[in-house]
């Protein structure tokens, strides 16, 4: 099944909306589980959309932008995964793997955009100097919309303009490459977590990392909630029964390590 112009336009519009949300992290409809489901609805196959969305969401739950990091892009992952699963004869699992390179590509585009937006700080500073309050607000709205447009274009190109090229590439993709992408998708969160660790890790927090790891390894659960409850319990125990800290310096110390990201 190939994508019609109307569908491509709707997909791109949706990419615009979720791209804006991805930029500002406001309503979280930029998460793959939502993105893919809507894509599925547009393409007339909400069930496969939801399935790919669920799989991608799980794979991307560890790839957070915390500390200003830029992870493989969740919008594009959700978009392309659902497109592959709903239009080709590709299984949802394989679709998740295939979407990965696209999502990494978009990640780099975002990094470039964050760099480009740096140049916007000159006019911004001038507005501050001029006490142009309305302008200060407006510049942030424009920034959001422009990001959305980037997603619109990306989506239109990938799902319509070069869809045949992509389709042909996929038909010829060997098994080991397919498998390789899936493996890469599975191992990628390691980097995300390592980046978190550079922010959060101190020797004295090692025990909690270990406890969380052991709990998740040996308990048989469906979501991370029990581990979070364990963490919560230890945190509360330490808060109520632990040694009181002197406080102030701790704040600074932690503050600084966080700024550096």
């Amino acid at each position, binding site marked *: 099944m190939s994508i019609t112009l109307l569908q491509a336009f709707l997909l791109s519009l949706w990419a615009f909306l979720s791209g804006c949300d991805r*930029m*500002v992290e406001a*309503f*979280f409809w930029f998460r793959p*589980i*939502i993105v893919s*489901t809507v894509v599925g609805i547009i393409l007339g196959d909400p*069930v*496969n959309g*939801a*399935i790919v*969305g*669920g799989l991608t969401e799980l*794979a991307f739950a*560890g790839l957070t932008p*915390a500390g*200003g990091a830029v992870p493989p892009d969740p919008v594009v992952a959700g978009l392309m995964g659902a497109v592959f699963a709903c239009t080709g004869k590709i299984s949802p699992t394989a679709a998740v793997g295939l979407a990965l*390179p696209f999502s*990494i590509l978009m*990640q780099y585009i975002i990094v470039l955009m*964050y760099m480009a937006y*740096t140049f*916007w700080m000159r006019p*911004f*500073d001038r507005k*501050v*100097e001029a006490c142009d309050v309305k302008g200060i607000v407006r*510049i*942030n709205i424009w920034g*959001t919309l422009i990001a959305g447009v980037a997603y619109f274009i990306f989506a239109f190109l990938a799902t319509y303009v070069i869809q045949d090229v992509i389709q042909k590439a996929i038909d010829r993709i060997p098994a080991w*490459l397919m498998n*390789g992408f899936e493996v890469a998708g*599975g191992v*990628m969160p*390691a*980097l995300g*977590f*390592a980046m978190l*660790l*550079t922010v*959060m*890790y101190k020797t004295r927090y090692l025990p909690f*990392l*270990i406890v*969380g*790891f052991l709990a*998740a*390894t040996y308990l048989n659960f*469906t979501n*991370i909630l029990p*581990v*979070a409850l364990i*963490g919560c319990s*230890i945190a509360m125990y330490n808060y109520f029964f632990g040694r009181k800290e*002197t*406080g102030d310096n701790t*704040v600074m110390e*932690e503050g*600084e390590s*966080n700024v550096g990201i």
Partner: protein
Amino acid sequence: MSEYKDNLITKSDLNAAVWRSIVIQGTFNYERYQGSGWCAMIAPILEKIHSDNKNELRERLKDNSGFFNTQLIMANFLLGLVISLYEKKADRKLINGLRISLFGPLAGIGDSIFWFTLMPIMAGICSSLATKGNIIGPIIYFLVYIGVFALRFFAIRVGYYTGSKSIEKLGAKTGELSTAASILGCTVLGGLIATLVSFQTKATITITDSVSLSIQEAFFDQIIPNFLPVVITILMYVMLKKKVSPTFLILLLLIGSLTLSYFGMV
């Protein structure tokens, strides 16, 4: 609620600030992070307070246009706090110092709760529905995060009233709360490494012609399950600490995976 009566800043000013907080990352960039966005959140408030004195307003705007980065619910909390201090005509340097020293720890607390705990839980619950093709999964997810957004209205108020009380106390508590959030965050992080990073080798050692040993089962799983994911995560951490760029590491993981896959080892 009586506090609002004599005050300049009204309930609807706070609400308007929350709506502006939507675009706090609208010009996110590597120089200021959320700095320019934060300025947009606070600017109209400052304008109202310093309507009579443009020079003062300019100084205050400048104070609020530097580097800034925190978790978004916490940004609203901090805004409430800062507003209440401005109203109280607290010392300008104190306000700015507080803002700068607080955004880090608050990011830590907020990220621990929202990124590292809430998100994987929601992912787990809703994905298990979604992967069965059930559209209720995404719907619940959506509704919960609308609720999370609504928390901003709550957070700005909490900040506003906390600021009206004592700040010294807050300082001490931030330390303890930050520790608590780090404990929560690290515990969940440990769990996430075990559940979300997946890597297994398919490599084998041939003993005799017919018998061969799976390295994964016979060795790595004997040490501890999820051994390789931990090792890879630690490796990434060490390289990041040695200033290797994340971009390079992504490519490394990608190419590594493809190569190992080509040789049938994963």
